[in-house]
Protein backbone atom coordinates (compact mmCIF):
# COMPACT_ATOMS: atom_id res chain seq x y z
CA UNK A 1 0.00 0.00 0.00
CA UNK A 2 1.38 3.38 -0.87
CA UNK A 3 0.27 6.85 -1.82
CA UNK A 4 0.03 7.70 -5.51
CA UNK A 5 2.92 9.36 -7.29
CA UNK A 6 2.48 12.70 -9.06
CA UNK A 7 2.14 11.04 -12.42
CA UNK A 8 -0.42 8.51 -11.23
CA UNK A 9 -2.44 11.20 -9.46
CA UNK A 10 -2.50 13.28 -12.59
CA UNK A 11 -3.70 10.40 -14.76
CA UNK A 12 -6.39 9.49 -12.25
CA UNK A 13 -7.61 13.06 -11.81
CA UNK A 14 -7.81 13.55 -15.54
CA UNK A 15 -10.04 10.50 -15.83
CA UNK A 16 -12.29 11.43 -12.94
CA UNK A 17 -12.46 15.05 -14.05
CA UNK A 18 -14.12 13.86 -17.25
CA UNK A 19 -17.19 12.97 -15.18
CA UNK A 20 -17.19 15.45 -12.36
CA UNK A 21 -15.00 18.31 -13.53
CA UNK A 22 -13.96 20.84 -10.91
CA UNK A 23 -16.06 19.13 -8.27
CA UNK A 24 -13.12 16.80 -7.87
CA UNK A 25 -11.65 19.18 -5.34
CA UNK A 26 -14.67 18.46 -3.15
CA UNK A 27 -13.55 14.87 -3.09
CA UNK A 28 -9.98 15.79 -2.28
CA UNK A 29 -10.75 18.42 0.33
CA UNK A 30 -13.74 17.30 2.38
CA UNK A 31 -15.14 19.23 5.32
CA UNK A 32 -16.18 16.11 7.21
CA UNK A 33 -12.87 14.30 7.38
CA UNK A 34 -9.51 13.64 5.79
CA UNK A 35 -9.87 11.25 2.91
CA UNK A 36 -7.03 10.13 0.75
CA UNK A 37 -6.21 7.92 -2.20
CA UNK A 38 -3.98 4.92 -1.68
CA UNK A 39 -2.65 2.41 -4.14
CA UNK A 40 -2.68 -1.27 -3.29
CA UNK A 41 -1.99 -4.00 -5.83
CA UNK A 42 -2.54 -1.53 -8.70
CA UNK A 43 -5.97 -0.54 -7.39
CA UNK A 44 -6.75 2.91 -6.12
CA UNK A 45 -8.76 3.09 -2.92
CA UNK A 46 -10.47 6.17 -1.52
CA UNK A 47 -10.25 5.81 2.21
CA UNK A 48 -10.64 7.93 5.29
CA UNK A 49 -7.60 8.57 7.44
CA UNK A 50 -9.10 6.62 10.33
CA UNK A 51 -9.66 3.49 8.28
CA UNK A 52 -6.26 3.89 6.68
CA UNK A 53 -4.55 3.80 10.03
CA UNK A 54 -6.40 0.63 10.92
CA UNK A 55 -5.63 -0.97 7.59
CA UNK A 56 -1.95 -0.26 7.99
CA UNK A 57 -1.85 -2.94 10.65
CA UNK A 58 -2.69 -5.65 8.12
CA UNK A 59 0.16 -7.09 6.11
CA UNK A 60 0.14 -6.28 2.44
CA UNK A 61 -0.37 -9.78 1.09
CA UNK A 62 -3.34 -10.39 3.40
CA UNK A 63 -5.04 -7.07 2.73
CA UNK A 64 -7.76 -7.43 0.13
CA UNK A 65 -9.44 -4.08 0.06
CA UNK A 66 -9.89 -0.91 2.05
CA UNK A 67 -12.31 1.96 1.84
CA UNK A 68 -13.82 2.31 -1.63
CA UNK A 69 -12.10 1.10 -4.75
CA UNK A 70 -12.18 3.87 -7.31
CA UNK A 71 -10.46 1.99 -10.05
CA UNK A 72 -7.23 0.40 -11.06
CA UNK A 73 -4.13 1.13 -13.07
CA UNK A 74 -3.61 -1.21 -15.95
CA UNK A 75 -0.28 -2.72 -16.94
CA UNK A 76 0.33 0.20 -19.27
CA UNK A 77 -0.49 2.68 -16.48
CA UNK A 78 -3.84 3.81 -17.77
CA UNK A 79 -6.51 4.39 -15.19
CA UNK A 80 -9.76 2.39 -15.36
CA UNK A 81 -12.63 3.66 -13.30
CA UNK A 82 -14.73 1.05 -11.48
CA UNK A 83 -18.44 1.14 -10.69
CA UNK A 84 -17.67 1.13 -6.99
CA UNK A 85 -16.72 4.75 -7.53
CA UNK A 86 -20.26 5.57 -8.64
CA UNK A 87 -21.47 6.42 -5.15
CA UNK A 88 -18.88 9.14 -4.92
CA UNK A 89 -19.08 10.39 -8.47
CA UNK A 90 -22.84 10.52 -8.87
CA UNK A 91 -23.51 13.44 -6.52
CA UNK A 92 -20.88 15.56 -8.24
CA UNK A 93 -21.58 14.59 -11.83
CA UNK A 94 -21.65 17.48 -14.21
CA UNK A 95 -23.54 15.87 -17.06
CA UNK A 96 -26.42 13.57 -16.28
CA UNK A 97 -28.68 11.44 -18.39
CA UNK A 98 -32.02 10.26 -17.11
CA UNK A 99 -33.52 7.25 -18.81
CA UNK A 100 -37.11 6.08 -18.95
CA UNK A 101 -38.20 3.09 -16.92
CA UNK A 102 -38.48 0.95 -20.02
CA UNK A 103 -34.92 1.52 -21.08
CA UNK A 104 -33.65 1.18 -17.54
CA UNK A 105 -33.78 -2.59 -17.44
CA UNK A 106 -32.19 -2.85 -20.83
CA UNK A 107 -29.36 -0.58 -19.75
CA UNK A 108 -28.82 -2.50 -16.55
CA UNK A 109 -28.41 -5.67 -18.48
CA UNK A 110 -25.76 -4.11 -20.60
CA UNK A 111 -27.36 -2.67 -23.70
CA UNK A 112 -26.87 0.77 -25.12
CA UNK A 113 -29.47 3.46 -24.51
CA UNK A 114 -31.43 4.48 -27.54
CA UNK A 115 -32.75 7.93 -28.13
CA UNK A 116 -36.24 6.75 -27.43
CA UNK A 117 -35.23 5.64 -23.99
CA UNK A 118 -33.84 9.02 -23.03
CA UNK A 119 -35.82 10.92 -20.42
CA UNK A 120 -33.82 14.04 -19.57
CA UNK A 121 -30.35 15.18 -20.22
CA UNK A 122 -28.21 18.02 -18.94
CA UNK A 123 -27.82 20.95 -21.26
CA UNK A 124 -24.69 21.47 -23.30
CA UNK A 125 -23.57 17.91 -23.12
CA UNK A 126 -21.16 17.50 -25.97
CA UNK A 127 -20.43 14.39 -27.94
CA UNK A 128 -18.40 11.69 -26.25
CA UNK A 129 -18.78 13.39 -22.91
CA UNK A 130 -18.53 11.29 -19.79
CA UNK A 131 -21.90 11.18 -18.05
CA UNK A 132 -23.62 9.44 -15.20
CA UNK A 133 -26.81 7.60 -16.00
CA UNK A 134 -29.78 7.93 -13.67
CA UNK A 135 -33.16 6.35 -13.52
CA UNK A 136 -36.20 8.62 -13.37
CA UNK A 137 -36.15 8.27 -9.61
CA UNK A 138 -32.69 9.86 -9.48
CA UNK A 139 -30.93 6.65 -8.68
CA UNK A 140 -27.55 6.31 -10.37
CA UNK A 141 -27.44 3.14 -12.39
CA UNK A 142 -24.66 0.66 -12.69
CA UNK A 143 -25.06 -1.84 -15.46
CA UNK A 144 -23.92 -5.44 -14.99
CA UNK A 145 -20.68 -5.39 -16.73
CA UNK A 146 -19.80 -1.80 -17.33
CA UNK A 147 -18.56 1.03 -15.30
CA UNK A 148 -17.62 3.84 -17.49
CA UNK A 149 -20.26 5.69 -19.36
CA UNK A 150 -19.92 7.59 -22.56
CA UNK A 151 -22.47 9.51 -24.37
CA UNK A 152 -23.00 10.44 -27.86
CA UNK A 153 -25.44 13.25 -28.34
CA UNK A 154 -26.15 14.05 -31.82
CA UNK A 155 -29.82 13.78 -31.16
CA UNK A 156 -30.94 15.08 -34.46
CA UNK A 157 -29.36 12.45 -36.64
CA UNK A 158 -28.42 9.35 -34.71
CA UNK A 159 -30.83 7.39 -32.60
CA UNK A 160 -28.27 5.83 -30.30
CA UNK A 161 -27.86 7.99 -27.24
CA UNK A 162 -25.69 6.42 -24.63
CA UNK A 163 -23.07 3.80 -25.12
CA UNK A 164 -22.37 1.47 -22.32
CA UNK A 165 -18.67 1.10 -22.59
CA UNK A 166 -17.60 -2.32 -21.60
CA UNK A 167 -14.57 -3.61 -19.92
CA UNK A 168 -13.66 -6.60 -17.84
CA UNK A 169 -15.28 -7.33 -14.53
CA UNK A 170 -13.12 -7.54 -11.47
Amino acid at each position, binding site marked *: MRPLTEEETRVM*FEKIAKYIGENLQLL*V*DRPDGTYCFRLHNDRVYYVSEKILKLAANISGDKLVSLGTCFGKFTKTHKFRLHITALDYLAPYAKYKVWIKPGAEQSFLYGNHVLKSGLGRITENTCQYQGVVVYSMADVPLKPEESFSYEEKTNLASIPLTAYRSSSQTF
Partner: protein
Amino acid sequence: MEGQNVEELLAKAERDEAEKLQRITVHKELELEFDLGNLLASDRNPPTGLRRAGPSPEAELQALARDNTQLLINQLWQLPTERVEEALVARLPEPTTRLPREKPVPRPRPLTRWQQFARLKGIRPKKKTNLVWDEVSGQWRRRWGYQRARDDTKEWLIEVPGGADPLEDQFAKRIQAKKERVAKNELNRLRNLARAHKMQLPSTGGMHPTGHQSKEELGRAMQVAKVSTASVGRFQERLPKEKAPRGSGKKRKFQPLFGDFAAEKKSQLELLRVMNSKKPQLDVTRATNKQMREEDQEEAAKRRKMSQKGKRKGGRQGAGGQRKGEFRAASLGWQEERRTTPRRKEKEVIFILGPACKQRTILNVKFGGRGGIKESGFCCLR
Protein backbone atom coordinates in the same frame (compact mmCIF):
# COMPACT_ATOMS: atom_id res chain seq x y z
CA MET B 1 -18.24 -45.08 79.04
CA GLU B 2 -16.96 -41.66 78.33
CA GLY B 3 -13.68 -42.40 79.99
CA GLN B 4 -13.29 -45.36 77.79
CA ASN B 5 -14.01 -43.21 74.78
CA VAL B 6 -11.47 -40.67 75.88
CA GLU B 7 -8.89 -43.37 76.51
CA GLU B 8 -9.57 -44.82 73.18
CA LEU B 9 -9.15 -41.46 71.59
CA LEU B 10 -5.89 -40.80 73.39
CA ALA B 11 -4.55 -44.21 72.47
CA LYS B 12 -5.53 -43.61 68.92
CA ALA B 13 -3.77 -40.30 68.95
CA GLU B 14 -0.63 -41.90 70.33
CA ARG B 15 -0.71 -44.58 67.71
CA ASP B 16 -1.12 -41.98 65.01
CA GLU B 17 1.86 -40.08 66.26
CA ALA B 18 3.97 -43.18 66.41
CA GLU B 19 2.99 -43.98 62.87
CA LYS B 20 3.93 -40.52 61.75
CA LEU B 21 7.29 -40.79 63.40
CA GLN B 22 7.71 -44.16 61.86
CA ARG B 23 6.90 -42.65 58.54
CA ILE B 24 9.45 -39.97 59.00
CA THR B 25 12.25 -42.09 60.32
CA VAL B 26 13.71 -44.59 57.97
CA HIS B 27 16.12 -47.24 59.00
CA LYS B 28 18.92 -48.06 56.64
CA GLU B 29 21.97 -50.21 57.17
CA LEU B 30 24.25 -47.89 55.30
CA GLU B 31 23.69 -44.18 55.47
CA LEU B 32 22.83 -42.46 52.22
CA GLU B 33 25.23 -40.06 50.58
CA PHE B 34 23.69 -36.70 49.96
CA ASP B 35 24.62 -34.02 47.44
CA LEU B 36 22.06 -31.43 48.38
CA GLY B 37 23.32 -28.95 45.78
CA ASN B 38 22.10 -31.29 43.06
CA LEU B 39 19.25 -32.66 45.24
CA LEU B 40 20.93 -36.02 44.94
CA ALA B 41 20.79 -38.96 47.38
CA SER B 42 22.89 -42.04 46.64
CA ASP B 43 21.80 -45.30 48.24
CA ARG B 44 24.55 -47.89 48.58
CA ASN B 45 22.53 -50.50 50.39
CA PRO B 46 22.35 -53.86 48.64
CA PRO B 47 18.94 -54.30 47.00
CA THR B 48 18.02 -57.58 48.73
CA GLY B 49 14.37 -56.70 49.05
CA LEU B 50 14.12 -56.16 45.32
CA ARG B 51 15.82 -59.39 44.46
CA ARG B 52 13.44 -61.29 46.64
CA ALA B 53 10.43 -59.63 45.16
CA GLY B 54 9.93 -61.62 41.97
CA PRO B 55 8.75 -60.70 38.51
CA SER B 56 6.83 -57.52 39.37
CA PRO B 57 8.51 -55.65 42.18
CA GLU B 58 6.25 -52.62 41.99
CA ALA B 59 5.39 -52.39 45.65
CA GLU B 60 9.00 -52.91 46.79
CA LEU B 61 10.27 -50.30 44.36
CA GLN B 62 7.70 -47.84 45.52
CA ALA B 63 8.58 -48.43 49.16
CA LEU B 64 12.28 -47.99 48.40
CA ALA B 65 11.67 -44.76 46.53
CA ARG B 66 9.48 -43.43 49.30
CA ASP B 67 12.08 -44.20 51.96
CA ASN B 68 14.93 -42.60 50.08
CA THR B 69 12.91 -39.52 49.24
CA GLN B 70 11.93 -39.22 52.87
CA LEU B 71 15.55 -39.27 53.91
CA LEU B 72 16.45 -36.64 51.31
CA ILE B 73 13.68 -34.36 52.47
CA ASN B 74 14.74 -34.83 56.07
CA GLN B 75 18.14 -33.56 55.05
CA LEU B 76 16.59 -30.64 53.21
CA TRP B 77 14.65 -29.61 56.26
CA GLN B 78 17.90 -29.30 58.13
CA LEU B 79 19.26 -26.65 55.77
CA PRO B 80 19.34 -22.98 56.80
CA THR B 81 16.17 -21.27 55.64
CA GLU B 82 15.37 -17.74 54.77
CA ARG B 83 12.39 -15.72 53.66
CA VAL B 84 12.24 -14.51 50.11
CA GLU B 85 9.11 -12.50 49.28
CA GLU B 86 6.77 -14.26 51.68
CA ALA B 87 8.09 -17.72 50.88
CA LEU B 88 10.22 -19.89 53.12
CA VAL B 89 13.22 -20.96 51.14
CA ALA B 90 16.07 -23.33 51.95
CA ARG B 91 19.50 -22.31 50.73
CA LEU B 92 21.13 -25.26 48.98
CA PRO B 93 24.86 -25.77 49.40
CA GLU B 94 27.26 -26.01 46.47
CA PRO B 95 26.94 -29.23 44.45
CA THR B 96 29.73 -31.68 45.11
CA THR B 97 29.21 -34.17 42.26
CA ARG B 98 30.79 -33.28 38.96
CA LEU B 99 28.27 -33.81 36.18
CA PRO B 100 29.48 -35.06 32.78
CA ARG B 101 29.66 -32.70 29.75
CA GLU B 102 26.49 -31.93 27.93
CA LYS B 103 28.15 -31.11 24.62
CA PRO B 104 31.29 -32.54 23.04
CA VAL B 105 34.69 -30.98 23.62
CA PRO B 106 35.24 -27.95 21.37
CA ARG B 107 37.70 -28.62 18.62
CA PRO B 108 40.72 -26.33 18.45
CA ARG B 109 40.07 -23.21 16.43
CA PRO B 110 42.37 -22.23 13.61
CA LEU B 111 44.72 -19.40 14.50
CA THR B 112 43.72 -15.92 13.48
CA ARG B 113 45.90 -14.08 11.00
CA TRP B 114 47.59 -12.13 13.75
CA GLN B 115 48.28 -15.22 15.80
CA GLN B 116 49.82 -16.95 12.80
CA PHE B 117 52.01 -13.94 12.14
CA ALA B 118 53.02 -13.61 15.77
CA ARG B 119 53.92 -17.25 15.96
CA LEU B 120 55.97 -16.96 12.81
CA LYS B 121 57.88 -13.93 14.00
CA GLY B 122 58.12 -15.11 17.55
CA ILE B 123 56.24 -12.13 18.97
CA ARG B 124 55.10 -12.61 22.54
CA PRO B 125 52.33 -10.51 24.05
CA LYS B 126 53.81 -7.80 26.24
CA LYS B 127 52.28 -7.45 29.63
CA LYS B 128 50.66 -4.04 29.80
CA THR B 129 49.14 -2.19 32.70
CA ASN B 130 45.39 -1.84 32.76
CA LEU B 131 45.35 1.85 33.58
CA VAL B 132 47.37 4.67 32.13
CA TRP B 133 47.96 8.08 33.63
CA ASP B 134 46.10 10.70 31.62
CA GLU B 135 47.68 14.14 31.86
CA VAL B 136 44.75 15.98 30.36
CA SER B 137 42.15 14.84 32.84
CA GLY B 138 44.60 14.24 35.67
CA GLN B 139 43.44 10.75 36.49
CA TRP B 140 44.12 7.14 35.78
CA ARG B 141 42.21 5.99 32.76
CA ARG B 142 41.97 2.73 30.93
CA ARG B 143 44.26 2.06 28.03
CA TRP B 144 41.49 1.64 25.46
CA GLY B 145 37.73 1.70 25.39
CA TYR B 146 35.21 3.96 27.05
CA GLN B 147 36.80 7.14 28.42
CA ARG B 148 40.27 6.07 27.47
CA ALA B 149 43.40 7.96 28.31
CA ARG B 150 44.51 9.46 25.01
CA ASP B 151 41.37 9.87 22.91
CA ASP B 152 42.28 11.97 19.93
CA THR B 153 38.64 12.35 18.90
CA LYS B 154 37.92 14.21 22.11
CA GLU B 155 40.52 16.96 21.76
CA TRP B 156 39.13 20.43 21.83
CA LEU B 157 41.95 22.07 19.90
CA ILE B 158 43.64 20.65 16.83
CA GLU B 159 46.32 22.56 14.96
CA VAL B 160 45.94 22.42 11.24
CA PRO B 161 48.99 20.54 9.93
CA GLY B 162 51.32 22.27 7.49
CA GLY B 163 50.27 20.78 4.19
CA ALA B 164 46.57 20.37 4.82
CA ASP B 165 43.69 22.23 3.24
CA PRO B 166 42.70 25.03 5.68
CA LEU B 167 39.00 24.48 5.07
CA GLU B 168 39.15 20.82 5.97
CA ASP B 169 37.43 19.80 9.18
CA GLN B 170 40.17 18.16 11.27
CA PHE B 171 37.76 16.99 13.93
CA ALA B 172 35.57 15.24 11.40
CA LYS B 173 38.67 13.76 9.85
CA ARG B 174 39.70 12.17 13.13
CA ILE B 175 36.25 10.82 13.83
CA GLN B 176 36.11 9.38 10.33
CA ALA B 177 39.50 7.74 10.74
CA LYS B 178 38.34 6.18 14.01
CA LYS B 179 35.20 4.83 12.36
CA GLU B 180 37.26 3.36 9.57
CA ARG B 181 39.60 1.64 12.03
CA VAL B 182 36.65 0.20 13.92
CA ALA B 183 35.06 -1.04 10.72
CA LYS B 184 38.32 -2.61 9.59
CA ASN B 185 38.70 -4.35 12.92
CA GLU B 186 35.18 -5.68 12.74
CA LEU B 187 35.71 -6.95 9.23
CA ASN B 188 38.87 -8.78 10.25
CA ARG B 189 37.12 -10.28 13.23
CA LEU B 190 34.33 -11.57 11.01
CA ARG B 191 36.84 -12.96 8.56
CA ASN B 192 38.62 -14.81 11.36
CA LEU B 193 35.30 -16.22 12.51
CA ALA B 194 34.39 -17.27 8.99
CA ARG B 195 37.72 -19.03 8.66
CA ALA B 196 37.24 -20.76 11.99
CA HIS B 197 33.80 -22.06 11.14
CA LYS B 198 34.70 -22.73 7.51
CA MET B 199 31.95 -20.44 6.33
CA GLN B 200 31.84 -17.51 3.97
CA LEU B 201 31.15 -13.89 4.74
CA PRO B 202 27.74 -13.03 3.30
CA SER B 203 29.12 -9.96 1.54
CA THR B 204 31.68 -11.94 -0.42
CA GLY B 205 29.93 -15.30 -0.32
CA GLY B 206 30.26 -17.19 -3.57
CA MET B 207 32.72 -14.79 -5.14
CA HIS B 208 35.81 -16.91 -4.67
CA PRO B 209 36.08 -19.49 -7.42
CA THR B 210 35.60 -22.95 -6.02
CA GLY B 211 34.96 -24.94 -9.14
CA HIS B 212 31.49 -26.03 -8.11
CA GLN B 213 29.35 -22.94 -8.05
CA SER B 214 25.75 -22.80 -9.17
CA LYS B 215 24.51 -20.79 -12.12
CA GLU B 216 23.04 -18.11 -9.89
CA GLU B 217 26.25 -17.72 -7.90
CA LEU B 218 28.27 -17.38 -11.06
CA GLY B 219 25.81 -14.86 -12.40
CA ARG B 220 26.05 -12.81 -9.23
CA ALA B 221 29.83 -12.97 -9.26
CA MET B 222 29.83 -11.82 -12.85
CA GLN B 223 27.57 -8.88 -12.05
CA VAL B 224 29.78 -7.78 -9.20
CA ALA B 225 32.85 -8.05 -11.40
CA LYS B 226 31.15 -5.97 -14.08
CA VAL B 227 30.30 -3.22 -11.65
CA SER B 228 33.76 -3.20 -10.06
CA THR B 229 35.32 -0.81 -12.54
CA ALA B 230 36.20 2.86 -12.18
CA SER B 231 33.07 3.86 -14.08
CA VAL B 232 30.94 1.47 -12.01
CA GLY B 233 30.22 -0.72 -15.02
CA ARG B 234 28.87 1.97 -17.31
CA PHE B 235 31.11 1.21 -20.26
CA GLN B 236 31.27 -2.56 -19.92
CA GLU B 237 29.94 -4.26 -22.99
CA ARG B 238 27.71 -7.25 -22.84
CA LEU B 239 28.06 -10.38 -24.90
CA PRO B 240 25.88 -10.52 -28.03
CA LYS B 241 23.08 -12.57 -26.54
CA GLU B 242 23.51 -11.59 -22.92
CA LYS B 243 20.45 -10.09 -21.31
CA ALA B 244 20.43 -7.19 -18.89
CA PRO B 245 20.21 -8.27 -15.26
CA ARG B 246 16.81 -7.97 -13.68
CA GLY B 247 16.24 -5.52 -10.90
CA SER B 248 19.44 -3.58 -11.42
CA GLY B 249 17.85 -0.16 -11.82
CA LYS B 250 17.42 2.49 -9.19
CA LYS B 251 14.87 1.58 -6.58
CA ARG B 252 11.88 3.91 -6.62
CA LYS B 253 11.11 5.85 -3.51
CA PHE B 254 7.53 6.57 -2.59
CA GLN B 255 5.99 8.90 -0.10
CA PRO B 256 5.36 7.39 3.34
CA LEU B 257 1.94 5.85 3.95
CA PHE B 258 0.71 8.42 6.45
CA GLY B 259 2.85 11.34 5.54
CA ASP B 260 1.60 14.80 6.09
CA PHE B 261 -2.06 14.64 5.03
CA ALA B 262 -2.31 18.40 4.78
CA ALA B 263 0.67 18.59 2.43
CA GLU B 264 -0.74 15.78 0.31
CA LYS B 265 -4.06 17.58 0.06
CA LYS B 266 -2.34 20.82 -0.84
CA SER B 267 -0.29 19.25 -3.62
CA GLN B 268 -3.37 17.52 -5.03
CA LEU B 269 -5.37 20.77 -4.99
CA GLU B 270 -2.48 22.52 -6.69
CA LEU B 271 -2.44 19.83 -9.35
CA LEU B 272 -6.19 20.28 -9.84
CA ARG B 273 -5.79 24.01 -10.11
CA VAL B 274 -3.14 23.61 -12.78
CA MET B 275 -5.30 21.11 -14.62
CA ASN B 276 -8.34 23.35 -14.50
CA SER B 277 -6.63 26.55 -15.51
CA LYS B 278 -6.94 27.16 -19.24
CA LYS B 279 -3.56 28.79 -19.79
CA PRO B 280 -0.64 26.47 -20.42
CA GLN B 281 1.79 26.60 -17.55
CA LEU B 282 5.43 27.48 -18.03
CA ASP B 283 7.80 24.71 -17.13
CA VAL B 284 10.76 26.74 -15.92
CA THR B 285 13.39 24.01 -16.08
CA ARG B 286 12.49 23.04 -19.62
CA ALA B 287 12.45 26.65 -20.73
CA THR B 288 15.87 27.41 -19.25
CA ASN B 289 17.39 24.23 -20.65
CA LYS B 290 16.03 25.03 -24.05
CA GLN B 291 17.44 28.56 -23.82
CA MET B 292 20.85 27.34 -22.76
CA ARG B 293 20.93 24.84 -25.58
CA GLU B 294 20.03 27.50 -28.10
CA GLU B 295 22.75 29.77 -26.77
CA ASP B 296 25.35 27.04 -27.01
CA GLN B 297 24.34 26.27 -30.56
CA GLU B 298 24.57 29.94 -31.50
CA GLU B 299 28.00 30.24 -29.95
CA ALA B 300 29.24 27.14 -31.75
CA ALA B 301 27.91 28.40 -35.07
CA LYS B 302 29.49 31.80 -34.43
CA ARG B 303 32.86 30.33 -33.63
CA ARG B 304 32.79 28.27 -36.76
CA LYS B 305 31.88 31.29 -38.86
CA MET B 306 34.57 33.43 -37.25
CA SER B 307 37.27 30.90 -37.75
CA GLN B 308 36.24 30.53 -41.40
CA LYS B 309 36.22 34.28 -41.92
CA GLY B 310 39.51 34.69 -40.14
CA LYS B 311 41.16 32.14 -42.40
CA ARG B 312 39.77 33.79 -45.50
CA LYS B 313 40.24 37.51 -44.85
CA GLY B 314 43.31 37.68 -42.75
CA GLY B 315 44.45 38.67 -39.36
CA ARG B 316 42.82 41.86 -38.33
CA GLN B 317 39.30 40.82 -39.12
CA GLY B 318 39.83 37.51 -37.56
CA ALA B 319 41.39 39.05 -34.52
CA GLY B 320 38.55 41.49 -34.11
CA GLY B 321 36.04 38.79 -34.65
CA GLN B 322 37.77 36.35 -32.38
CA ARG B 323 37.48 38.72 -29.51
CA LYS B 324 33.81 38.07 -29.25
CA GLY B 325 34.56 36.13 -26.19
CA GLU B 326 35.89 39.20 -24.46
CA PHE B 327 32.79 41.23 -24.87
CA ARG B 328 32.23 41.85 -21.28
CA ALA B 329 31.89 45.11 -19.50
CA ALA B 330 35.24 44.96 -17.78
CA SER B 331 37.47 44.30 -20.79
CA LEU B 332 35.82 46.59 -23.30
CA GLY B 333 34.44 49.11 -21.03
CA TRP B 334 30.95 49.37 -22.36
CA GLN B 335 28.32 50.79 -20.25
CA GLU B 336 24.71 50.52 -20.67
CA GLU B 337 22.16 53.17 -20.31
CA ARG B 338 18.53 52.39 -20.09
CA ARG B 339 15.95 54.84 -21.02
CA THR B 340 12.24 54.31 -21.24
CA THR B 341 10.29 56.80 -23.25
CA PRO B 342 6.75 57.15 -22.06
CA ARG B 343 5.27 57.12 -25.51
CA ARG B 344 7.05 54.14 -26.89
CA LYS B 345 6.57 50.76 -25.35
CA GLU B 346 9.99 49.42 -26.12
CA LYS B 347 13.05 50.29 -24.15
CA GLU B 348 16.05 51.94 -25.66
CA VAL B 349 19.34 50.60 -24.56
CA ILE B 350 22.45 52.51 -25.44
CA PHE B 351 25.80 50.86 -25.25
CA ILE B 352 28.73 53.17 -24.90
CA LEU B 353 31.68 51.27 -26.19
CA GLY B 354 35.14 51.79 -25.02
CA PRO B 355 38.21 52.32 -27.16
CA ALA B 356 39.11 48.66 -27.30
CA CYS B 357 36.31 47.94 -29.69
CA LYS B 358 37.62 48.12 -33.20
CA GLN B 359 35.91 48.82 -36.42
CA ARG B 360 33.84 46.25 -38.14
CA THR B 361 33.38 44.14 -35.10
CA ILE B 362 30.19 42.22 -34.91
CA LEU B 363 28.36 42.49 -31.71
CA ASN B 364 26.02 39.83 -30.58
CA VAL B 365 23.55 41.71 -28.50
CA LYS B 366 21.07 40.02 -26.29
CA PHE B 367 18.26 41.65 -24.44
CA GLY B 368 16.86 39.84 -21.58
CA GLY B 369 15.25 40.09 -18.24
CA ARG B 370 14.27 37.74 -15.54
CA GLY B 371 12.07 35.72 -17.81
CA GLY B 372 14.91 34.76 -20.08
CA ILE B 373 16.37 36.22 -23.19
CA LYS B 374 13.72 37.92 -25.22
CA GLU B 375 15.57 39.28 -28.20
CA SER B 376 18.97 38.99 -29.64
CA GLY B 377 20.45 40.54 -32.67
CA PHE B 378 23.63 41.51 -34.37
CA CYS B 379 24.83 44.97 -35.02
CA CYS B 380 27.88 45.83 -36.95
CA LEU B 381 30.03 48.82 -36.10
CA ARG B 382 31.94 50.97 -38.43
